[in-house]
C-alpha cells in the first residue's frame, strides 16, 4: 500500500471530522461545502480501494490476510458516503456530529489498514 495515500486519507478524514464537529458545535446542519469535503474524502478512499486491489493483483500480499485487507478497504470506502446520507436525513447539528464521527471512524480504519498491510 502507498503509505502516503493512507496518511493523506487519514488526515483528510480527521480534517473533515473537525470541520463537521465545528458545525455541530455551532448548531448547524451540514451544508454544500461539507458535502464537497465528504466527496473529496470519499474519492481518496476510492483511489485507495483501487490501488489496494491493483497491488493485490500484482501479487503482493498483505501481512494479515487478503480477506481482511479487502474488507477494510471496502469498509473505508463505504464509511463517508454512509454518514453523508445520514446527515441528509437528519438536517440538524446531529447530522453534522454523525459526519464527524464518520471521519474519526475512517481515520481509525486507515491505521488498521496500515497494520494489516504490514507497514
Amino acid at each position, binding site marked *: 500500500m502507498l503509505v502516503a495515500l493512507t496518511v493523506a486519507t487519514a488526515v483528510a478524514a480527521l480534517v473533515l471530522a473537525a470541520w463537521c464537529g465545528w458545525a455541530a458545535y455551532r448548531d448547524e446542519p451540514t451544508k454544500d461545502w461539507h458535502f464537497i469535503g465528504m466527496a473529496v474524502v470519499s474519492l481518496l478512499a476510492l483511489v485507495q480501494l483501487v490501488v489496494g486491489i491493483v497491488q493485490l493483483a500484482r501479487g503482493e500480499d498483505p501481512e494479515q490476510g487478503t*480477506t481482511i485487507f479487502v*474488507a477494510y478497504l471496502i*469498509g473505508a470506502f463505504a464509511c463517508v458516503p454512509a454518514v453523508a446520507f*445520514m446527515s441528509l*436525513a*437528519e438536517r440538524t447539528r446531529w*447530522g453534522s456530529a454523525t459526519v464527524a*464521527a464518520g471521519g474519526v471512524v475512517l481515520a481509525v480504519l486507515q491505521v488498521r489498514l496500515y497494520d494489516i498491510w504490514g507497514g
Partner: protein
Amino acid sequence: MAVDGKSRRTRLIGGPGILLVWLYGVMVVGAVSRSAVQIATEFDKAPLAYSLSAVAGLVYGFITYSLVRGGERARRAALVCCAAELAGVLIVGTWTLVEPSAFPDATVWSDYGMGYLFIPVLLPVTAMFWLRGARARTAGAERGTAPGRRDPAAEPDA
C-alpha cells in the same frame, strides 16, 4: 429513511439518535465481520472469544434494527438489549482481565472494549439515556419539531 407512513411510532432516530445509529452500525459491521472471518478461518484457536464476538454482533444488529424501526415495543426491546450489552461488556471485560488464559485471542468486549476506543462500554449507557428520554419526548412534545431540540412554544412561561 421511511418514517412518513408510520409517524405514529415513537421516532428513535431523530436528533442524537442518528449518531447512535451510526455508531451501532459501525459496531455491527465490526463485530459481525470480525467474528465471521475468525470463525471461518481459525475457530479452534479461541472458540470462546470468537463466539462472544458473534453474539455481540447479533446484539448490536438487533439494537440498530430497533432504533431504525422505532415504536414503543422496539424502544423497550432496545432498552433490554442495551442493558444486556452493558452487562456483557462488564462481565467479559472483567473476565478477560481476571483470567486472560481463557481468551487466547481478543473479543470485541475484551478489556471493556479498549480495542474499540471503549465505545462498547460507553454506547449502551448513552443509548439507555436516549431511549429513556425518547418516550417522554414523544408523549409530550408536538411532532414536527426536531427531537433533542426544545420547542420554545412548548416551554411553560416562567
